[in-house]
Structures are given as C-alpha cells and as structure tokens.
C-alpha cells in the first residue's frame, strides 16, 4: 500500500498516525505541506529516521522546490521523486491511502 500525506507534521498529526498504523514495508510519500516533515534537524527527524527503517519514505521534488527546501537539507534515507515517480508508486502499489 502507498500512503500519501499532504499536511505539515507541525500542524496536523496525519504523518504520526500514518506511521502508527501503516504496515511495515509499505511506501510513504510526502506531498504538498507534507514535505516539511523531512527537513534535517527538525523536531520530526528522529521519527522520520525511524520510519525509513521500516518503510521507504519519499518526498515529492516539485513540492520541496516550491517551498525552497534544497535536497541537501533532507534527512538521510528519504528519497526524492518527481511527478513521474509519484505515478509509478501509485501504479506499482495495489492501493493508495491518502491521509488528510
């Protein structure tokens, strides 16, 4: 299953709850304000680092760019994908859960 999260983790707990309920091995893609989760040195870092051990964590490049977050600011282990990668993830997974 692919999980997408589009909310900042500092405003909503969508990412926290997703990580609590997502089966190990599932893909997690951060989009829109969700990309604020993957900045190195933030209060989310340890949680996201933990998540990269059980899941593959992706962030959407264009949304990072739009927000001025350069790739060298990202927590190690987080993979950046473009829209094509988003499409591939959605196609490769049997289901998608969009956390709001």
């Amino acid at each position: 299953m692919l999980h997408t999260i589009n909310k900042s983790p500092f405003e909503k707990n969508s990412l926290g709850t997703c990580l609590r309920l997502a089966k190990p091995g599932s893909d997690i893609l951060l989009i829109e304000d969700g990309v604020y989760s993957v900045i190195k040195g933030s209060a989310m870092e340890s949680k996201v680092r933990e998540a990269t051990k059980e899941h593959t964590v992706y962030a959407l490049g264009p949304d990072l760019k739009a927000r001025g977050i350069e790739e060298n600011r990202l927590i190690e282990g987080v993979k950046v994908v473009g829209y094509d990668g988003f499409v591939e993830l959605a196609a490769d997974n049997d289901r998608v859960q969009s956390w709001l």
Partner: protein
Amino acid sequence: MGNGAKKFMYVNRRAPYGTIYALEGLEVVLIGAAFDQDVSMAFVDDGVFQLKKGQDTGESNMKNFSPTYHALGDYEVTKLYVDRESLGERGLSQDDLMELTYEDEDDDYKEKPSIRIVDRKELMKLMEEQDVILNF
C-alpha cells in the same frame, strides 16, 4: 451482499463540529452503503469524538448529526472500529461512546453492538484487508 462486493473502509480522524469533514464523511458512508458494498468505519485521533454520547447543539445553532450514527445499522454499516489509543489519549473510554447497535439478520435479528474497540495491530490488519480506504 453479493460476492462482487468490495471492502470499503472510511477512516474518520476529525472532531464533529469544528470542520465539515465528519458530516461529509458520514454522508459519503450512507451513500456508499446504498451500493451494497462491505462497508466499515474506523475512528482514529479526534475522530473518536464523533461517537461521544450526549452531544447537544441546541445553544450553538448547528445541526446535531450524532443521531444519524444510530441509523448506520439499518444501512448494514455494522462495523465501527474505534482506536483504543486515541480514546485513551483523550480521557475517554467505551462508556463515553453512544450505544450503537444493529439487528443481525443471520442470528434471529438479535441486537448487537456495532462499536468495536481495537488496538493498533488489529486496526493495521483491518486496513490491509480493504480494497478501498477513504480518509475524512
């Protein structure tokens, strides 16, 4: 329910009156139920407040839609999973929730509770079993 029925889970994570999510979600569930699918609902995070008993909007000029949850059983929506951790974090227990029941047509129309309190692992497993998951 036909064999072609898909498993739909509606995940509710918002409190009832501050935003429109809860009411809209409930309406989608009722619409979806008309299509003869295998429907369940999960209540997680502030979503558990939707099921709090004793809601009274009389003085606040809003529609109290909590009685609608009692109708779910008649639409064959009989599986309402409530996340135990979310309840506990908010100082609530099962006694704080509305008593929602359905009549089990396979068991002489006995009245049975619709709400099931589940832990994280059970909910994780239930989500994995679904064909479609919609979040509200």
